[in-house]
């Protein structure tokens, strides 16, 4: 892990996806340290004096690409008091501090993969998927199973589908609890059964899981029940 650095940023764009889900686009005041797809940052919206203690903060997956060292993208939904404060207090031009990089949830495409994302958990995969070459003939296959409450909250879904259509390497399966008016989205919740239905070699894949804790718990248990070894199950879990 590169030496973490604390960097002041300004909020450039606040993208609202509805249902209290947002993408924040930040501009750091200096170049970001090197990081890898899947790593996360800590962000505080409180004033920070670098000579003093780091204030209360929250962890967010870095959704922007590791090659982009001059911008940061994170995704959040208002699920607690801190993200509620973010929703209420952050405006374009607001100052925030981030420290990064952290985390070992780094995706290695050295085997066929299945990426399972629930809600804003997609942000842990975004930079990896954006970097993936779907036409690479001898590349390992990548399947994305991505679920949200409604189709509008399937962030970047069209981008990922368009990418998958370019070659045979990548497949995308979108699900929503209510999929009305979205023909490309299957109604229902993501499940291990769904993975087995869609993937012939499901048992041989490495699974990366990112999303709400109940989803992680259910899917990881389901994978173990199907005989997957612990080494096949990589989890981006948060308290």
């Amino acid at each position, binding site marked *: 892990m590169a*030496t973490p*650095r604390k960097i002041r940023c300004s909020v450039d764009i606040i993208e609202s996806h509805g249902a209290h889900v947002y993408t924040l686009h930040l501009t750091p005041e200096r170049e970001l340290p090197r990081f890898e797809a899947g790593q996360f940052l800590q962000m505080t919206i409180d004033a920070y004096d670098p000579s003093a203690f*780091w204030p209360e903060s929250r962890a967010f997956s870095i959704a922007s690409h590791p090659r982009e060292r001059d911008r940061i993208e994170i995704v959040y939904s208002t699920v607690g008091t801190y993200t509620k404060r973010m929703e209420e207090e952050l405006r374009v031009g607001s100052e925030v501090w981030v420290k990064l990089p952290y985390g070992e949830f780094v995706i290695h495409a050295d085997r066929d993969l299945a990426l399972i994302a629930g809600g804003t958990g997609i942000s842990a995969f975004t930079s990896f998927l954006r970097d993936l070459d779907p036409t690479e003939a001898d590349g390992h296959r990548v399947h994305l199973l991505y679920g949200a409450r409604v189709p509008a909250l399937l962030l970047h879904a069209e981008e990922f589908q368009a990418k998958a259509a370019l070659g045979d390497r990548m497949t995308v399966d979108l699900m929503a609890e209510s999929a009305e008016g979205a023909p490309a989205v299957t109604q229902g919740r993501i499940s291990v059964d769904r993975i087995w239905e869609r993937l012939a070699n499901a048992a041989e894949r490495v699974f990366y899981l990112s999303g709400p804790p109940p989803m992680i718990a259910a899917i990881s248990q389901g994978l173990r029940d199907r005989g997957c070894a612990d080494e096949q199950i990589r989890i981006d879990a948060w308290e």
Partner: protein
Amino acid sequence: MASNQERETQLRREILDKVAEYAELKFAPTAFSPGRDLVHYAGRVFDADEVTAGVDSVLDFYLTANRFSEEFEADFADTVGVSDAYLVNSGSSANLVAVTALTSPKLGDRRLEPGDEVLTVAAGFPTTVAPLLQNQLVPVFIDVGLGDYTALPDRIEEAIGPRTRAIMMAHTMGNAFDLDAVMSAVNRHNLWLIEDNCDALGTTYRGKWTGTFGHLATSSFYPAHHITMGEGGCVMTRDEELGRIVRSVRDWGRDCYCAGGENNTCGKRFSQQFGTLPFGFDHKYIYSHIGYNLKTTDIQAAIGCAQLRKLSGFVDARKRNFQRLHRALEPYQDRLILPHATEHSDPSWFGFVITVREDAGFTRADLVKHLEVRRVETRALFAGNLLRHPAYIDIPHRVVGDLKNSDLITTGTFFIGVYPGLDESQLDYMIESFHEFMKRG
């Protein structure tokens, strides 16, 4: 009416301005008085920047690692060309952490086990070898060349046995060891490489900084070294897994990577399973290694940050001073072995190493005594043959070939300074001192 924040900022500025004024007065350069002032072999080279940086950190009073440590580690890693740099309290501690890291259970079959052999040299500084013994590893000694003082490349292959698992050697006195030969052995035999780069900050080999070739490398920031923070050192790596282990070994052996004073950076502080501990046991107090506490203070790091900004100039000065001494002493090569760079190496010299030839007609003691009387400071090439020292006589070890040159170094070698604190008049005086000795016949 100024707010407390504004008053605090203003006071800090006033204090630092006064400190700078004081430092400029207190540490103003003085004219060299030949024969009276000591010509040091090494020393701190600093100005008001370092003094104000140190005071700035004291005014933070965070004490343990904080903004300056973070800045130093990141900037040092960028300067050298590695991904990770971890500050420790000395170069010797850096060596201890680096070797201990390679014994980590997290490395599985690749970990170094007690009784495994590590290839090294006998002529050098003891704490390149001590961490091997402290980790129940067995040093395998090979001899060094005279003039370059690095491992004889043709002995490397010969020295590798069935239990040899690593190479740990210093770029002695700033001179890169033969990295072509070493890397070839590392790759052929799947060995670990630790570069002890404590003497060699700024040295390049085939245009690439030493300290970037090995799995791990170390630096020293003791006052005699290329940059200083008083006591200090660094472990470097480009391998993130090793980086995490290094951090753990340095920080009590703990699994958690939160900085001092921070909590739950990983977001999983109370929701993980380790060993046979109850689920959710506080991650801050979970230990994955038998570790140490070898961290620095932020005050040291603040001074290091100011020094790091001057590194390039320091390296240039060392090279310049070396060339000056070399040119002046070339006429005496019939009696003195002068230092030379190994092939492909562009050394950021630590010192100017001289070996008195056996048939010189005088001894090292004669020449050193003459220089010291004239107040030109000298040092031995560290320990000479380490195996002749009381603490090392009975250590478990293997010697491949002989250590003839290491013994010659013990009796015939010393070095003088090339550090950036030497000015023209001091260099002239050093050279004049050699001329005077040689004229005596």
